[in-house]
């Protein structure tokens, strides 16, 4: 009923299918196997690679719009990400500081409070902060609400959102009311605990 040739094709197809399944899994967990993608941060690199990226491909927007705003080290690869950050309607902090993006910020450091000095690496997962034990950072003091605030990545950029907390979340002394981009090394204050996102 089935010819030799069909069986041969089916046999090779099955092996291919098995390997496709293996590689699908490997692809899905590539960041776990090989670590986060490392991006070059040298400014010379950014200059060298940015123009061909803008001219050669039609899809990424011109980096020239992004470059003046973020004068210092612009990430080489994610030109579109930093351009999107500029296009974001929410108020960008006017400190001239780098915004903490997935590429620039690597750790969260507690700067004051009971756990001052503690730090942990930032991944790509969002970080919830509050008194409840299902938060990523649990802060148990008199000022913290159950679900107080959260840090999440929007367009590869860390945003701070207050979750309607009673005593407020402060970014460099100003109360956060709408989701706000967090600059690198800016002080975020929740209750009596402060922390910063650092390189």
């Amino acid at each position, binding site marked *: *009923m*089935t010819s030799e040739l069909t*069986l*041969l094709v*089916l*046999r*090779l197809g*099955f*092996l291919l*299918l*098995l*390997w496709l*399944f*293996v590689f*699908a*899994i*490997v692809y*899905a*967990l590539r960041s*776990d*196997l090989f670590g986060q993608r490392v991006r070059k941060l040298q400014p010379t690199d950014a200059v060298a690679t940015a123009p061909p990226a803008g001219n050669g491909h039609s899809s990424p927007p011109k980096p020239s719009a992004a470059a003046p705003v973020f004068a210092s080290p612009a990430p080489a690869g994610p030109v579109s990400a930093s351009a999107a950050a500029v296009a974001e309607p929410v108020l960008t902090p006017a400190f001239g500081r780098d915004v903490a993006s997935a590429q620039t910020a690597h750790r969260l450091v*507690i700067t004051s*409070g*009971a*756990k001052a000095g*503690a730090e*942990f690496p930032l991944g790509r997962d*969002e*970080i*919830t902060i509050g008194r409840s*034990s*299902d*938060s*990523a*950072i*649990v*802060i*148990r*003091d*008199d000022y913290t609400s159950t*679900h107080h605030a*959260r840090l999440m990545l929007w367009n590869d950029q860390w945003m701070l*959102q207050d*979750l*309607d907390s009673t005593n407020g979340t402060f970014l460099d002394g100003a109360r956060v009311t709408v989701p706000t981009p967090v600059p690198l090394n800016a002080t975020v204050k929740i209750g*009596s*605990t402060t922390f910063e996102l650092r390189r």
Partner: protein
Amino acid sequence: MPAVSRSSAQTASNPVRRIRIPQKFRNLELLLLIAACAINAIAIVLVQLGALGHIDTTLIVLGAGLSLLVFGMHVAMRFVARDADPFILPIATVLNGIGIAMIYRIDLAYGDVGWASAAVRQIVWSAMAIIAAIVVIIVIRNHRVLFRYTYVAGFIALALLLLPLVPGLGREVNGARVWIGIGEFATFQPGEIAKIALAVFFAGYLVRNRDSLSMVGTKFLGMRMPRMRDLGPLLVVWAFSMAVIVFQRDLGTALLYFGLFMVMLYVATGRLSWVLLGFSLFLGGALVASQTLDYVNGRFTNWLDAFNPAIYDAPGGSYQLVQGIFGLANGGLLGTGLGQGRPDLTPVPQSDYIIASLGEELGLAGLFAIFALYLLFIARGFRIGFAGQDDFGKLLGVGLAFVVALQCFIVIGGVTRVIPLTGLTTPFLAAGGSSLVANWIVAALLLRLSDTVRNQPRLVVNE
């Protein structure tokens, strides 16, 4: 009105909280599961086309029932383990399915149908195993519950191991007394479940006692040697595994238990001296056993001198081992194709020698795909242990993953003549109900661990 504005602000932020955890892991798992079930169905169809020349739907319907159960587990995890690892379930499903296809292929060669068919029994056992896994993941909501039952787990392991020695209950198959059975059927290998209980016991015991094990002792040859009184547990476990060799005549299981203990001891204390001490003890014991015990001695000669015609033809000789190697050679790089080889020439091709059978019909390429799946499964287990924040969870994750890894090494190494052949089952693949149940429970525990690990706070600030 302030009250109104407050409530409206709350309703505005509530949806944000509800979608706080997107089920991206579960969606990825669903995609992979669909692919996994497709692979399993295709494997069975290919076996039928290769061996029968036409498609017969009975087994495919049974397999579809199994797929439904797996999807049931997936749905259960959407509710009770949303953040669990998305790769473990699909990998276990594919391995289990390929195993069923291969067992079915051997049934076709033997002409077994209906209840005599090992594949049908394997499907029934798989169903029970998956149900057991679902129960574990629903009942155990936090792995730290197990920490409370450390010593209970130790006693359960001991009791399970002693069960086959109880007269009337124990069954002896091929010389190894590791089965229990009621009546003629429903045989079970309690040692498979015991390995999980042992992993829980070792993890709990080492978390409680590791400081005294790692900190004190005199330096000797540049290594810190443990004190005599701390050697106690090591010697007990060693004596225990030697007893398994002598009384149950099961070399592989003894190696598995002892290896598990050594690795968990090493992970807990970071002292190489323990591992060196342990393995020299085990090697010494095994050497003595190989000289004094007939069956251990036979295994060694079969391994070292397999192609000697005298040993090949001897009863209990290397016939099976050599047939398996011939099968692998017949498969070559791409295999003979499912249903088109002669794996049935090797004795017990559906359980101990399923790797040789698969190697013959899928070839080196297919066998390596299967090894890659094992590698990914074990790597996920280590990764879960690595990411854990409580010591018990770390140790348990590493221990469970290592049990699967060591079992793969012992079986596959034995079949390919890297180490002496010992009777253990290939996880998820081989025909054998107890092994399936145990390995699915291991998978469920790893899933539970990965879920709690991801849900743990990364930092707790207490005033």
